[in-house]
Structures are given as C-alpha cells and as structure tokens.
C-alpha cells in the first residue's frame, strides 16, 4: 500500500483506486462464497454416499442428523473394509463389472469400425445410390423418433431368436450402430486431405488397408471421442440389458453392473453402508474415464452444437 501511495502523485486517484480495490475484493469474496455454496448443493449427495459407504449400520444410525453424516467413520475403518469386502465377495460385483467392461470394449471396437467405415465411404467415395444413404442418415438424425424399445425387443426375441448366452448379442449389436457417429466420422474424414489416400493408392493399397493404416490413425481425436461416449453409454445402460439378458446363465451371470446393482440393493438384510459401497464401486470407473478423457468429452460437446 505504502509503495502505491509513493508512486501515485494524485491523492484523489489513490483513493479511487483503493475503493475499487476494496470493492473488487468484496465482490470476489461474495463470488467464492456463492460458488462454494453451489458446490455444496451439487456435491453433498455424493459426499454422503462416500461417507455412508464406510459405516456399519449402527454408526450410520448414530451419525444421523449430525454433520458426521458427511464424514467417513474414521474410528472404525474395519466396517469400511467389511462393506466393500461384502460387496465384492458375497455379492460378487466384480463379475458384473467385468461383464460391463467386456461389453463396453466390444461395443467400442465394433462402433468405431462399423460407423467409421460407413463414414469413410460417405466422405470419400462416389457410387450409384449414394443419395439414398445420405437421405437415410439425415432423416434418422433430424427426426426425433420415440425410442422404440418394445419393437426392438420383439425383433431381438422373435425375429433373431436371441436366447440364453446368445442374448449378449442383443446388448452389443444395437449399441454398435449409431447414425450420429457415422455423421461425426463423415464430417471428420471430409477434412482429411486427399493426398494421403492418393499416395497410398499409387503404392497399391486397397481401400480397407487405407482406412485402417492411414485414415484411422489420422483421426485419433474423433475415435477417442466416440470411444469415450460408447464406454459411458454402455457402462451406464440399465434398462435394455435388464430386459434382454437372463439373470444367471450357466453359472456365470450375464448382467452388466447397472442391472446387478438393482438386484443387489433389494437383497434381504443388506445394510445402507453396503448399498452405498455398491453404488460407489459402480461409479468409480466412470469417474476415472471422465477425468482421463476430459479433453475428448469436451470435443464431443463442441461437435454436438454443430448438429443444429
């Protein structure tokens, strides 16, 4: 402050400076207080979930109504281990998590290849009847069709007769096609200069080879975006897998994790802490994906805006 006073010759100006500075600090403080309050509104259920997952039923009841509800049970860390241990071993949540990972991995690979190839064809080739495909793509993107989950169910069960272990295909295949992803790939591939392809074609490479060896490696950002959204979609999907999959098939359960949580939380005699632990286990992988793939998710938002 002293320094400023010495430098500024005009006393009036100094006063003005100080006032605005004081005002600025006050505004800043208000801003941070508001921000923190808002953050509490958005986070308290999650903090509550995490804290409760460490508690035995008795300390859950004892902490009710006090701020202790939002703090983990530090005195009795054994109960945390018990809750998570029970969720993993007795309720076997790791198997369902593994199922979800496998489904997601297959969906990602198929989604990128199937929609990527279609996008590549639509972006780079000319062939008789192309207009038909462009029309269908645009139609399916623009028209808001009420998700026809019941007709889809009848197709899967009656037309394709997917039963037992085969019904895994009913989870994977419908998620592997996305008209919107074809559109995304198409737009991205159009921006890749023709020279790359032509050079490879002169060397005698076929179209498939060009797609896998040149186009896909050049399109890492869009592939990562599509893969991220595929993972989130498959991991978080609950209704459709629950409809088409049998609960237990030949010893190994086929349910993905979201469907499993539904049956876990209705087990007789399950404690609140255990339910919360199961919810936490189900959410952690998706949190990790969001942190790791943040950049690609933001890119997804950027392209989402283009649609309209």
């Amino acid at each position, binding site marked *: 402050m002293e320094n400023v006073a010495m430098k500024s010759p005009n006393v009036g100006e100094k006063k003005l400076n100080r006032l605005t500075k004081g005002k600025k600090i006050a505004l800043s403080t208000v801003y941070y207080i508001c921000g923190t309050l808002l953050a509490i509104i958005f986070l308290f259920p999650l903090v509550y979930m995490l804290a409760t997952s460490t508690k035995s039923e008795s300390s859950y009841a004892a902490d009710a109504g006090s701020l202790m509800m939002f703090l983990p049970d530090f005195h009795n860390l054994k109960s945390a281990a018990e809750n998570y241990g029970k969720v993993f071993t007795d309720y076997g949540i790791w198997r369902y998590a593994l199922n979800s990972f496998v489904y997601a991995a297959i969906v990602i690979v198929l989604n990128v290849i199937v929609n990527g190839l279609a996008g590549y064809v639509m972006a780079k080739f000319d062939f008789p009847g192309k207009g038909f495909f462009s029309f269908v793509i645009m139609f399916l993107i623009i028209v808001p069709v009420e998700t026809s989950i019941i007709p889809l169910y009848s*197709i899967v069960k009656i037309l394709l007769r997917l039963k037992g272990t085969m019904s895994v295909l009913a989870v994977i295949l419908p998620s*592997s096609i996305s008209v919107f992803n074809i559109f995304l790939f198409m737009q991205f591939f159009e921006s890749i200069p023709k020279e790359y392809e032509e050079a490879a074609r002169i060397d005698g490479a076929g179209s498939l080879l060009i797609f896998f060896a040149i186009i896909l490696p050049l399109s890492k950002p869009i592939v990562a975006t599509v893969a991220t959204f595929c993972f989130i979609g498959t991991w978080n999907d609950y209704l459709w897998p629950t409809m088409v999959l049998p609960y237990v098939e030949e010893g190994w359960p086929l349910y993905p994790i979201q469907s499993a949580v539904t049956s876990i939380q209705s087990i007789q005699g399950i404690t609140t802490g255990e339910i919360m632990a199961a919810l936490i286990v189900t959410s952690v992988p998706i949190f990790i994906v*969001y942190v790791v793939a943040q950049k690609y998710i933001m890119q997804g938002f950027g392209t989402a805006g283009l649609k*309209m």
Partner: protein
Amino acid sequence: MLGSTLAILGVLILIFAVIAVKDLVLAKIKHTRYNWKNCLASYGMILPAVVLAFIFVLLPIIYSLGYAFTDFYLLKPDNITFDEDFSNFTIIIRSIREKGDMYYAIRNTSIFVVGVVPLQIGMALGLALFVNRTKKGVGIFKVCYFAPVVISLTITSYLWLQILSPSEYGLLNSILKLFGQKPRDFMRDKKGAMIWIIVMSAWQGCGYQMLIFLSGLTNVRKELYEAAALDGANSWEQFLHVTCPGLRSTFLYILITVFVGACRVMVQPMLMTGYVSDTLTLSYYMYQQGYTNRWVGRSSAVALMMTIVIGAITLLQRRLLREKD
C-alpha cells in the same frame, strides 16, 4: 414376422435401386464414369453399417408404426392380425376419459416436462454464466457442478432413495428431526414424489447443459461486448443484447434435447416408486404395456402418439427460435 421383414427389405432395396439407376443414367448423360473397383469396395465397406442400421434402427421404427394398428401379443407372435377397429387407440382414449393409467401417465409426464425443462435449463444457464470468467479456482467449481452428470440414472435414483429414506435415519428425515418433525415417506407422498423426481433429475442433468452453454458462450465474439460497453450498456443490457442472441442456436439445441429427454422420463419413477399412479409416466406406461403385459400393439400405439406430439412440439420450437436469423 420374417415375411413382413423381407417385404420391408424388398421395398428399401427397390428405392435404392431406383436411385442407383437414376445415378447411372445421369452419369451416362454427363459422360462421367464410376470407378467400378471403388464402387464395389464402398458397397462392401458400408454393408455392416447398413445391415445393423436396418435391423436395429430402421426396423424398430417401421414396426412401431405398424404394430400400432395390430393386436400383436408378444406370446403369440405368429398370430398378428390387422385391427380394423383401431382398438389400441380407442382403448387409450377410453383410458384417458375414464382417468385410467393413460390419464395419469399424460398428466405426470406433462408435470415433469413443465417442471424440469425450465428448471434444468435455467440452472444450466445460470451456472454457465457464473463460471464463465477467468478467476482462480473456477475450474474446480466447474468440476463440482458437473460431477452428478457422471453417475448413471440408476445410481442417482438409489442414492436419492437413501437420502429420502422414510426411516428416521435417512438424510432428509434426520435433518427434519432436528426441527422436531416426524419422519415422512417422501416417495409415497401424492404430490411430493413427482417434485422430488424433478429436483433430482435437474440436479443430475444440468451440469451437462452447463458445459454446452459454456462452449456456446466462448463462441460469442469478445469485440461485441467491448462495443456494447463503449456504448454504455450495463451488464444486464449486455446480457440481453449480446449474450442472448449469441446463444440462440446453443439454446435451441439444449431446449430440444432436454425437452425430448424429459418426455422420455422413465427410469427414475421406475426405480424410485414403482408403477403407481402418482409418478407413472408415458414411457413407463409404454414399457409396462409392451414388456410386462406383452401387449406390443397397444404399447406401439402409445409410442406412435408420443412420436407425433414430440415431433410437432420440436418442430414448433425450431420454427419459433429460428425465424429471426
């Protein structure tokens, strides 16, 4: 079902063939030539997508239109007859008139849409404006507000079920107890249950739209704000005359996606209350009719009506917001 599928496939191939022949004729007139090797390659590469899209995207849409006019019962798939009296639709209309499930489904879905669309979009816009500045720590706020989006609807529903637990140890009830209130069963409350579902859905979803608004805000040109400030506009006027027009297309996108998503609400009432008239929604009714009761025809009639209404409202929103460009 196989027969009708083949018929649909035939019609689509016919349309495709007509367009392809037209292209070939045009090429001949213009004396251009297709590279046959490339054409074959492109047909081969697009084939997997075409097959999957036909079976899992197009067929369900076409069938949901067709089933609405049949008496399709899932357990008797070989015995589908065309329904001359449109009984699926008359049953729906009677259900609305006599205050049956359909009446409640329409009422609750409307309440949900009217409640959640302004709440969620308003919260998202407010948060986006709040974090749209270069200050220390804003990034942390953004992450906090976005965090609920990450968890799935299943997890959110069960988490809130615990928060709203009817036992005296539930989060909300234990706080109410401090004020001397008796424990309440929030999700069994006639009016309250839907409100809690609305609040929960807005809480869970608005972080997503916040990010979309933010990317829209960064596209508004900085010079416009400077020009407005030079003209003496205060921050409210700047918001009204610079931010709002700049956000028009973002807003339209968000309005349509949130609206369509809200019309489809189903998982939250399903997991939090079950099939009760206070929270039953249209999608849930559709699911109950088609999956649990196996009346695919009736369920498809509901889907058809929903598609028409949602499509009409979406078009209207587009018209209203797009005109002034």
